[in-house]
Structures are given as C-alpha cells and as structure tokens.
C-alpha cells in the first residue's frame, strides 16, 4: 500500500519528473496534473480548456503516452515522467521539428490549443509507429507500423479541438514530420 498512511489525510508527498527534472511536492489529493503543472511548477504551456477531457488543450505525455492532464489526479502519478510542450525541443534545439512545422505551415490562429495539438501529435506518431490501429485503419497486419495518410491523422487527432478551425494546416504540419 502507498499513499496516505492515516485515514482522513488529504495530502500526500508525490514525486513527478517533469521535462527531465524531478519535483517532490505535497499534493492535495484533489489536484489534477494540469493544475500542478500550471500553478505549482509554473509551466503554463498545457492549457485549461474544458477541464472535462473533451477538448484536448491540456494534453501532455505521461510515461511517453498522450493523456488529458485535467482528468489525472497528480497523487496517482507518483513516480511518473511527464513531458509538456516546454520540454519537447531536444538538446541544442530551439524548437522541436513539429513546432517548427507548425510555424512553417501557419498551423494555428489564436494558439490556445497548440500545446495540446503538439503533444497529442507526438504521442500519436509513436502510437502509429508501434502498430496501434485507429478507427480508419484497414489492411495493416497487427503489430506493423500504420502508415499515416490525412484521414488517419485527422481521426487520431480528433481528441484535440481547434475552435479557430486550423485543422487542415495542422494536418499539413504533422505530415511534414512523418518519418
């Protein structure tokens, strides 16, 4: 068993490694990862859109997988590796190639959904490479990488809303970085 030792406790010490840096925090059990990132760690990239897992603006990578950080209790993630939009660029890079592609393709208007779109797209590229199918996948044997055409990209990014409607250019930008 881990977590609080005395019944009735409302906070627990929680360690999260965020963009490579470990943080140990006393976390109120009610706090979701999104609020810890934004308010405690001052990483304002992940956005609070709907706060109900419906818009994707809060998408980050936890242990390499894209998730809605507004629906994950931080205490339950003790020991996890979190990657946010602030940590996408590699050593010596100003921007991750996908971030540069978003600029080159003008893949946003207001930019509010962009950090979530970026994290979601990177998680999605790994899923497809690992052979995860989508609703529109046909004729790809199990376990083989799934080639990504525009329909695949659109379906796989359907959990990220863009109220400006920049979708066609988001798809263009993602296509630019497909290996």
């Amino acid at each position, binding site marked *: 068993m881990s977590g609080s030792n005395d019944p009735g*406790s409302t906070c627990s010490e929680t360690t999260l490694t965020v963009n490579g840096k470990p943080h140990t925090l006393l976390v109120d059990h009610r706090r979701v990862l999104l609020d810890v990132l934004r308010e405690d760690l001052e990483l304002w990239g992940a956005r609070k859109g709907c706060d109900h897992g419906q818009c994707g603006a809060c998408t980050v990578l936890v242990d390499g997988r894209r998730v809605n950080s507004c629906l994950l209790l931080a205490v339950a993630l003790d020991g996890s590796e979190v990657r946010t939009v602030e940590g996408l660029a590699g050593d010596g890079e100003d921007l991750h190639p996908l971030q540069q592609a978003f600029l080159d393709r003008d893949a946003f208007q207001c930019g509010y959904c962009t950090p979530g779109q970026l994290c979601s797209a990177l998680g999605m590229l790994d899923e497809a490479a690992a*052979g995860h199918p989508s609703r529109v996948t046909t004729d790809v044997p199990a376990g083989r990488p799934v080639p990504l055409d525009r329909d695949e990209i659109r379906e796989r990014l359907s959990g990220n809303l863009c109220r400006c409607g920049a979708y066609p250019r988001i798809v263009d930008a993602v296509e630019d970085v497909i290996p």
Partner: protein
Amino acid sequence: MKTFDYVRAASPEEAAELFAARPGARYLGGGTNLVDLMKLGVEQPDALVDVSRLPLDEVEELPDGSLRVGATVRNSDLAAHPAVRERYPVLSQALLAGASGQLRNAATTGGNLLQRTRCPYFQDISKPCNKRAPGSGCGAREGVHRDHAVLGHSPHCIATHPSDMAVALAALDARVELYGTEGARSVPVADFVRLPGEHPERDTEIAPGELVTGVLLPAAGAGLPSAYRKARDRASYAFALASVAVVLRVTDGVVDQAGIAFGALAHRPWRARRAEQALLGAAPTQAAFEHAVDLELSAAEPLRDNAYKVPLARSLAVDVLTRLARAAGA
C-alpha cells in the same frame, strides 16, 4: 470538490481490504469518468482506493483458447493487441470507435464497463435524476431525451449505457470477473449491466466493494467474422446514437452462430436474442436479416424525440449482418 483520503493498492486482496476499511470509498482506475464526475459533484467519495497499478495489465491466452483481459489493460492497448485484432475484430473496432486517443490511453477495461451514463440530467446536480438521487424523478422523460433509451427503460430512468466496448463484449458472450471480500465470481457481460427497473441507481450487478479483475473472452478462431458499426452526430469522438456489434458464422449455407448486441438503445448493451434465434439455421439473406432485426426491435418503446433510433439501429444491424455474410462467401 471535497477532500478525500487516497491509498494505492498492490493486489486485489489488499484493494478489497482497503475499500472495506474506508466508508464512502471508490476504486480509482484511469479516472477518465470518475474524476470528471467528482468535478461535477455527482461523485463525492470520502476515499479513493487506487487500483490502476494492480498487476492486472496482461492479455493472457489460456490453454482452452479463451483470452483473459486484465482489468487495468488500457483501452488503447487492448484495441491494438494482435490476438484481439485477429480473433475479435468487433472488440478492437468498438474500442477504437469510442472516445479519443488520449482517453483510450488512460481508460481501463474495468473502468470502461463501470462508466456512468452521460445523461445530462444525471451529470447536472441541479436537476432531478433517479439514478443520482433516488426518488427525485426523471428529468429526461419529459425533457431532452433525443439520446436516450428505446428498449428496456422504466418509468424511473431512460438513460443509456455509454460504452462501445461493452456492446462488443456482450455480442461475444464475454464474462466479467469480479473479486470481493466474499471471494471471486464471474458474470456474463450481457447480464452484468442491469436494466433500470425500480433501482436505476444500480448500474450493474457489482456488489459494494467488489472489484472488476478482468474480462474473459470465449475461444474464437481467426475465422469467426465479427464487426462493429456506430452512428453518431459527427465522424469521430462522440457517443453513439445507435451502434451494433455482430458475430456471425455461416456454415454450409446456414447461420450456425449469431451474437448481436445493440449499443445506445438501452440501459445495458442490448443482446438481441430474439433476432439471434430467428437467424440460427436460416439462410443468410438480406430478407432473413431484416426479418430477424425487426422481430427484435418490435419491442422498442420510443419516447417523444428518439423514435429515429429504431430505423437507425435497424439499418446498422442489417448492413453489418449483410456485410459479414458476404465476407463469409454466403
């Protein structure tokens, strides 16, 4: 949100003990529904027993050919599993028709089965709802109910079960495996989720403190045709207006195995046993499929604004049955 205690269990046995020692506890899986309901004030647990890291994250092939899916296997991993894609395509398709990539990465097999209805009256604590507050009435019956049940509803509740996965499991004759302080047991998925009757506050047959530990899929060869089809308001990332899961085997020109379940039509995945009975031994023709599906849907009792679901479900079912029969060379 009110404060709550949090503990993480290392085994099903420990989870059941931790739960029993904490009145007002809830099990936490992926949290994609429970945390949302806590934000809405619909759920107000005093404690969460985290079962998301229990060692139940394997998909295991058993010697008799059946497949055991652990309760903490994530929806995305289950949909991608080679054995599921090859032998139970209806299950992979149903999972991929639900939610978004982010949600499927978090949602667990057990939690998917136990998710609550998305009826707007259930989710809004300022509205009457017999499921959330027994005896307060049903706001949906005379209110907004375009998405609600047409089969098996009661005067007390017209909510639908929101899962796509459970519809496929019902058609496949899958069983839910449960563990509690009284021991282990298993229940067919089609019976596990209840009809509302006079107790809509009880979604399933699970006992207080009992834990879903897995799902058992009966043996199916790679040649058992199955498929899922879902109608919704937009092409992706929306709950079903109607859906159907079908398992169909044709041998020597007649149907010798049929499993049909409808989604979004009832408080449970609706196993279409009358339609299945009508098809067994029949030639797999479009006329036979239409006759069988009509027999099943003749029991429908649509509400003021959801009669469209009956012909929609009929079209989906006849289409999937016809396509599967064609693929089988009938």
